[in-house]
């Protein structure tokens, strides 16, 4: 019987199976073996006498590491990389004498981490593409739908539902830019030796510096990297991790704002996140429909934003060529950050795609605030008809407050009638006052801004993200 174990909820509840596979022990073992294979192949090609059957031996055992056998070695040796080398040596005896030749542990650990980080960035860009596509759809569909804009979470002027969606899209688009920048510049560690000086490879190639550099290039190319770090100590600079997690944390910022906005709007009854027909909101309050997906989005986003402290401090606390300050912290933080980002983007896409715009509520809320929106224009009409600006302002203020008090008591909106009956507005035609209540006159260039933003910014970005497209089998576990 295996004893009860702790499992991270990021694995059991939130992150996709693809993201989990990237950070799995099995994948790491497979990558280490591919790195040893690429190293041996490149060394052989450059004249190191490694027999073909040694290489064939590694190639035949890329994905069949027995992690239990590795653990037995590790308990004895207290060294994870050597444990893997011994186990592979058992499976491929012909390769055993040539494995890891000239390399240091960080050859496999750091390079494999960079491959996983790169692939995680790629997967996140695929997820982000879905979020952006969903928000694009939302923006276009509701580009002309006037809605109350809020500053200080108090009704301000109007905007449109679609225009507001572009605000969320723009935040996520900035994150996509950051991720693309990180990916474009992400280097491989390559073959640099124990303190980064390549001394062991200089020995291996009898002082032939050109071959040492060519080895570095070839192994990097085998994994699709065009650049290796120009210099490093034992490890690649941990600032690389920090910059990646910074880019991921940006997703947390955007996810949090999107999630919070949705929760506010669900409170107003204007936008509802998607819900299953049998979903229960509360065990005791059966009527409740809670914005639980948006709440989870916020919770995961906050976790991700907070994680970046770790990578910043890890970069800050490395000593000289390396210390082990990074190891345990990176083991936790890098996968957690990747999985939190994955989970929040799956949620954001799900919400963005399924969000329900309650048009009647949106319109009712607009109608309720319209008279107050119109006061500035009514003021101008009264002044144009000969009124004194300061006196009219006081008249409007007095009636506004009274009308709002009456509405709070449950009476119908009355500001227009109150003003029309006031002597200050005697010379203004009521029809002209009423004409100012048309919401479309208060949305400025919202609609055009939506179409311009989509055409000039969002669509080109979505095109750039096409190579990262995922097949979208990842769903939300609610």
């Amino acid at each position, binding site marked *: 019987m295996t004893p009860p174990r702790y499992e991270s909820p990021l694995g059991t509840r939130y992150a*996709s199976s693809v993201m989990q*596979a990237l950070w799995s022990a099995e994948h790491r073992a497979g990558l280490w073996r591919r790195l040893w294979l690429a190293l041996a192949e490149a060394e052989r090609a450059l004249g190191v006498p490694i027999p073909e059957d040694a290489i064939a031996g590694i190639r035949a055992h*890329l994905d*069949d590491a027995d992690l239990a056998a590795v653990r037995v070695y590790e308990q004895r040796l207290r060294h994870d990389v050597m444990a893997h080398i011994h186990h592979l040596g058992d499976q491929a005896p012909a390769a055993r004498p040539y494995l890891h030749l000239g390399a240091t542990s960080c050859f496999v650990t750091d390079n494999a981490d960079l491959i996983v980080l790169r692939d995680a960035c*790629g997967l996140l860009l695929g997820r982000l593409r879905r979020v952006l596509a969903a928000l694009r759809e939302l923006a276009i569909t509701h580009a002309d739908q006037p809605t109350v804009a809020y500053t200080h979470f108090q009704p301000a002027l109007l905007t449109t539902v679609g225009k507001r969606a572009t605000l969320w899209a723009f935040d996520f688009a900035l994150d996509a830019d950051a991720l693309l920048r990180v990916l474009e510049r992400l280097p491989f560690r390559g073959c640099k030796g124990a303190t980064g000086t390549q001394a062991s490879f200089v020995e291996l190639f009898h002082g032939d510096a050109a071959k040492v550099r060519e080895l570095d290039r070839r192994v990097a190319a085998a*994994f699709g990297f065009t650049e290796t770090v120009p210099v490093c100590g034992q490890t690649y600079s941990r600032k690389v991790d920090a910059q990646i997690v910074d880019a991921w944390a940006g997703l947390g910022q955007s996810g949090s704002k999107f999630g919070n906005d949705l929760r506010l709007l669900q409170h107003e009854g204007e936008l509802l996140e998607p819900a299953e027909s049998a979903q229960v909101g509360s065990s005791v309050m059966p009527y409740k429909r809670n914005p639980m997906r948006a709440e989870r989005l916020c919770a995961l986003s906050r976790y991700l934003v907070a994680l970046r402290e770790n990578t910043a401090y890890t970069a800050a606390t490395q000593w000289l060529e390396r210390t082990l300050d990074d190891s345990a912290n990176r083991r936790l933080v890098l996968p957690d950050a990747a999985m939190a980002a994955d989970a929040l983007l799956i949620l954001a896409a799900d919400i963005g795609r399924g969000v329900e715009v309650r048009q009647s509520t949106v319109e009712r809320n607009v109608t309720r605030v319209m008279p107050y929106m119109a006061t500035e224009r009514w003021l101008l009409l009264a002044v144009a008809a000969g009124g004194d600006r300061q006196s009219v302002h006081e008249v409007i203020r007095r009636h506004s407050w009274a009308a709002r008090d009456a509405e709070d008591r449950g009476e119908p909106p009355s500001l227009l009638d109150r003003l029309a009956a006031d002597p200050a507005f005697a010379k203004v035609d009521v029809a002209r006052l009423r004409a100012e209540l048309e919401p479309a006159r208060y949305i400025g260039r919202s609609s055009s801004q939506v179409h311009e933003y989509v055409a000039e910014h969002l669509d080109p970005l979505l095109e750039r993200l096409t190579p990262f497209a*995922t*097949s*979208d*089998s990842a769903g939300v576990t609610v």
Partner: protein
Amino acid sequence: MPFALAESRLPLPLLRRGKVREVYEVGPDALLLVASDRVSAFDVVLPNPIPRKGAVLTQISAFWFGELRDVLPSHFLTADDDEIIARVPALASHRDQLSGRAMLCRRTTPFPIECVVRGYLSGSAWAEYRDRGTLAGEPMPRGLVESARLDRPIFSPATKADVGHDENITLDHARDIVGADRADQLRDASLKLYAAGRDRAATRGIIIADTKFEFGKTSEGTTLLIDEVLTPDSSRFWPADQYAPGRGQPSFDKQPLRDYLADLKKVGKWNGSAPGPDLPPEVVRATSDRYVDAYRRITGHDLPA
């Protein structure tokens, strides 16, 4: 035009590189089949890959494996990129090569015969009938014309040739190769699979004139449908609205390509042997459109982007 893949290069042990497909090993129990975008016509692989062709072939197979599951279970595990990467994360860096072209399958021991079913008289079967009045060695009624619909679909096995053409054989010969009971089992399965596929395709305006099935045995001894199934590459697809017996039929998928090549041959610009000539962009595009359309026609859905 989306990116076209001439041949895949994935970080897995390569078992076979076929005319248009690669087969990789995924541990002891699974295989990854990748349909590249290479295209062949008149038995020559052409230099220009056809965008989306590989994805069309793979996703049509995936569709049929699902449709035909009740007739016979198959080796199909998944053809969804995310699900494949979740099981084989080493492929995460190669999503551009997957893009719907790859299928993860259970590994089986294939039976060494190709199980061809013919519902219409075409290709090598027409040649055999015209010359000898038989089909798969069995006598046939006289007076059939090219592309004639057969009263009953005929099981017409072939050997699997490593090089050159597969050779048509008789049912008796197939019994010698795989055993009598097994040969009869594969014949019955083939005829049922063909009938189910033919009826379904007919509702969508496509005639499946003939097709080739392959079967394999699992380590537990179960027979599974394997390889690709009822794709344009393993079958003759004819547009039903243009069907007219008494001549060769236009091909649903490759006709623009064949027309172009036939014209080149006619004016002496290509002798019909490898290497094939470069294809102009409009022929590449037209062929790609035909494949994508074939997917839509057969499945009723657009090929996912």
